[in-house]
């Protein structure tokens, strides 16, 4: 039996049976990373776990490089955070250890500061898609998704600001969930866009997604935006029964730019849902076309302010021999940030500038409300909304790096959930002719993660997709 191929719920059973120990699990993951990761490059700064202090017992969880782990370098895959060793744990890390998990003392690759949809914007170089190493794994949580897909991780945490969990999960053929804004504490997640960021699970199946969500959810007094609401046991939602569930299919998601092959696969998935008891109907989310521009104003505006603290004064990269204060700022940031980070900082700074604020930022906030209202209206009648996770399957590395706009459109179907603050999940729902996985996105109203998992699980029970693993 290959331990690294197991899910966490399978591992729990085996560990209880004393078929092997926690140490065996970590050793299995370690040797798997050693043998596979040179091809996938899902992890950064990996040197093996030897020489680490004795690791606590627990099912290992791989952590994205923007979630602080005490004593483990956390650099957001950016040169500007070089050497940053957090003196504190993110709340999710503490919650993991409290729930029988163990955060692996190594981080997964990502687009610098989560700026990207392909994990090509990392100061450590790109991650490869395990299904086709010439393709990108999606992003920004591409390292986490690729690690899970390649069985280099039992499960992983990612962060999702505009699709950064779901889109790579879709590209890598795994399950990725973005919880409701406020469901999971953001304390210790290095902020990209504070009003959009959420941490969420990337797993091999929906049961693991429920298990990991159970572990990390809940109110945190350290995060004023976390919501003080009861957390149900999500594994209880996995009933297999979705009879009478009303599914809305937004017409705006099936028009421009969608790959016909993807469209067919999604339609088949919808048919499958209907076959197992759901009822579907076309709905409208009329402000969908504004989601991308609204997102790129709000997200970059917040990012421009969140990233201001990286100035070489206290931690991270500091330019050598600056001539005075302004020069220290200029050179540190010039040398420390990558292209895309600079692009977004400039965009966001512009959007907040005097004379432009009303036309851009304020207007974007208003349209954000309209987008949220669109969802509220649909959820008055429907239990969930089903869409493709991404308009295409994984694309070739380098294909979109020269055209940021094209890259931004890769998130066109995932961004709205962040703007509206609603939960969404991406599950494997088929393969393209080229053999690349395709993801089905399900969205529900705030705090209805249980329903998402129930639908995803029922679908999974009746399809083989989640069991497929790349040959690597």
């Amino acid at each position, binding site marked *: 039996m290959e331990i690294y191929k197991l899910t966490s719920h399978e591992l729990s059973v085996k560990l209880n049976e004393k078929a092997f120990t926690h140490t065996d699990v970590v050793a299995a993951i370690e040797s798997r990373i050693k043998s596979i990761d040179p091809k996938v490059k899902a992890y950064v700064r990996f040197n093996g776990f030897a020489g680490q202090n004795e690791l606590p017992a627990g099912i290992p969880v791989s952590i994205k490089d923007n979630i602080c782990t005490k004593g483990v370098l956390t650099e957001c895959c950016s040169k500007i955070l070089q050497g940053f060793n957090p003196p504190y744990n993110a709340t999710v890390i503490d919650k993991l250890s409290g729930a029988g998990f163990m955060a692996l003392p190594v981080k997964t690759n990502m687009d610098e500061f989560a700026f990207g949809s392909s994990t090509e914007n990392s100061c450590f170089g790109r991650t490869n898609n395990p299904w086709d190493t010439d393709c990108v794994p999606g992003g920004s949580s591409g390292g986490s998704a690729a690690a899970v897909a390649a069985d280099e991780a039992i499960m992983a945490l990612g962060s999702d600001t505009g699709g950064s969990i779901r889109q790579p999960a879709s590209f890598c053929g795994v399950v990725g969930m973005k919880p409701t804004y406020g469901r999971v504490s953001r*304390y210790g997640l290095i902020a990209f866009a504070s009003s959009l960021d959420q941490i969420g699970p990337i797993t091999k199946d929906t049961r693991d997604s429920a298990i990991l969500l159970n572990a990390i959810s809940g109110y945190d007094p*350290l995060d004023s935006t976390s919501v003080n609401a009861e957390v149900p046991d999500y594994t209880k939602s996995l009933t297999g029964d979705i009879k009478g569930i009303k599914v809305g299919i937004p017409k705006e998601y099936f028009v421009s730019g969608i790959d016909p092959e993807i469209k067919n696969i999604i339609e088949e998935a919808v048919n499958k849902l209907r076959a197992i008891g759901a009822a579907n109907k076309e709905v409208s989310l009329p402000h969908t076309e504004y989601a991308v521009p609204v997102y790129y104003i709000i997200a970059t505006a917040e990012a421009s302010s969140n990233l201001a603290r990286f100035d070489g004064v*206290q931690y991270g990269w500091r330019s050598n021999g600056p001539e005075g204060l302004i020069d220290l700022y200029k050179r540190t940031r010039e040398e420390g940030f990558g292209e895309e980070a600079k692009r977004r900082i400039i965009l966001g700074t512009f959007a907040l*500038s005097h004379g432009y604020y009303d036309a851009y930022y304020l207007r974007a906030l208003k349209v954000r409300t309209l987008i949220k209202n669109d969802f509220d209206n649909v959820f008055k009648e429907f239990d969930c909304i089903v869409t493709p996770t991404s308009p295409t399957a994984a694309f070739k590395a380098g294909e979109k790096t020269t055209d940021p706009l094209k890259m931004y459109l890769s998130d066109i179907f995932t961004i709205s959930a962040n703007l509206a603050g609603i939960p969404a999940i991406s599950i494997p729902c088929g393969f393209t002719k080229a053999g690349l996985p395709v993801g089905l996105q399900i969205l529900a109203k705030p705090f209805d993660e249980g329903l998402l998992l129930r639908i995803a699980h029922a679908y999974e029970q009746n399809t083989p997709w989640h069991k497929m693993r790349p040959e690597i």
Partner: protein
Amino acid sequence: MEYVAVIGLEVHLHLKTKTKAFCGCSTEFGSQPNTQVCPVCLGFPGSLPVLNKKAFDYAIKTGLALNCKVQNFTKFDRKNYFYPDLPKNYQISQYDLPLATKGYLDIEVEGKIKRIGITRVHMEEDAGKLIHKENCSLVDFNRAGVPLLEIVSEPDINSPLEAYEYLSTLKSILEYLEVSDCDMEKGSLRCDANVSIRPKGETTLGTKTELKNMNSFKGVRDALDYEIKRQSEALNRNEKISQETRLWDAKTMVSVPMRTKEGAQDYRYFPEPDLPPFLVSDEQILGLKNEIPELPTEKMLRFIKEYGLSEYDAKVLTSDKKFAYITEERIKKYPSANKKPVVNWSIGPVLETAAASKMEPADLIIPGGDDEFIKLIKLAEDGQISNLVAKSVFNESLKANKLATQIIREKNLFQISDESSLEKLADEVIKGNPGPVQDFKSGKTNAIMFLVGQLMKKSGGKANPKVVQDVLRRRLTDV
């Protein structure tokens, strides 16, 4: 030409909370650098602010005490600018929805009440402190994140004296609320002033300058005096006033223009996404309103009414909350209906002694406490000891940490009011000072005061001056 000054004050004060505005670090002043810091106030990546409820309540209370409308919906904003003392390179502040607006403060200037509008009261976090060395600059983040309140006045102030009174009145209210130490020297209160002048009778406002770096209320008054004079002279020379920030130097009593930044600073304010907006209910506001103690003006009016004090006395007694409180306790304990002696003693010897020893008047320790203090006043009022003796006994009692009554007993200081023994002394004085006696007899009745003084001297200060005067007058006219 005669000019009218138009002044607006911007006061920043530290709220007296135990912990910082958005984290649990201590706010104590004067600790070793960077010992009161955590990931939140250092702005470490991934850290998030959590509002200090106490600071927020203090801010609302201040708004209420300044007659402001406290908003039911308020939020925080980020003020973005780069500076090494600002760990996140943005300050959490309030921009378009401050927690309290449109209040006023009544001040008294030369016997007249004047109302100064309060534009807004908002909460924000303080920055750290830069320490410049020869080859480098160091940052102490202990102060970073300490809760600050900004109180902005309307440009209703028209003279440096009014500015001084505004600050004194404000300070006294804030001390009564116990929300701030208001210590300008420790930096717990800072004040910037905007000032412009216009010819008397005209309504168009002149170009204003901003004055910074004043470290006392007197400094504010001096800086304004200087600036108004500077602007008047410039206008009289037909020069233009340039809009600038000027730094006051208390040593040279001169202000100089600060190096101007290139172009206007754009702070790119936007709502702080890490803190959801706050809803403040009317019940919450009412609850905080009920916690506001009697404020100085109310107390002063009550003192006038209840104890028959003069306005001046009442004002002096109520300017300091603790002192007002202990003085009122003494007034209540004083066993006669006429409370004036306690008031005189409080304003006189107590305040003088406190000032001389640089102590807060409420902190002055009187041996034997209020009881001894009251006995001493009563002995003086009843004429058993002279006022002069009483005062020296008071001073000695404090200096030697000895009961006043014990000193009086040991030194036998009770006043001589016995007329027969005083008559003997009076005769001696009359005999020894024929000149003044002649003066008195020829109609210069004031000459008697000299003779009284001589008699007092002879008695070693123990004679009762009132009785002495009577006795002398009688002997002079009898003989």
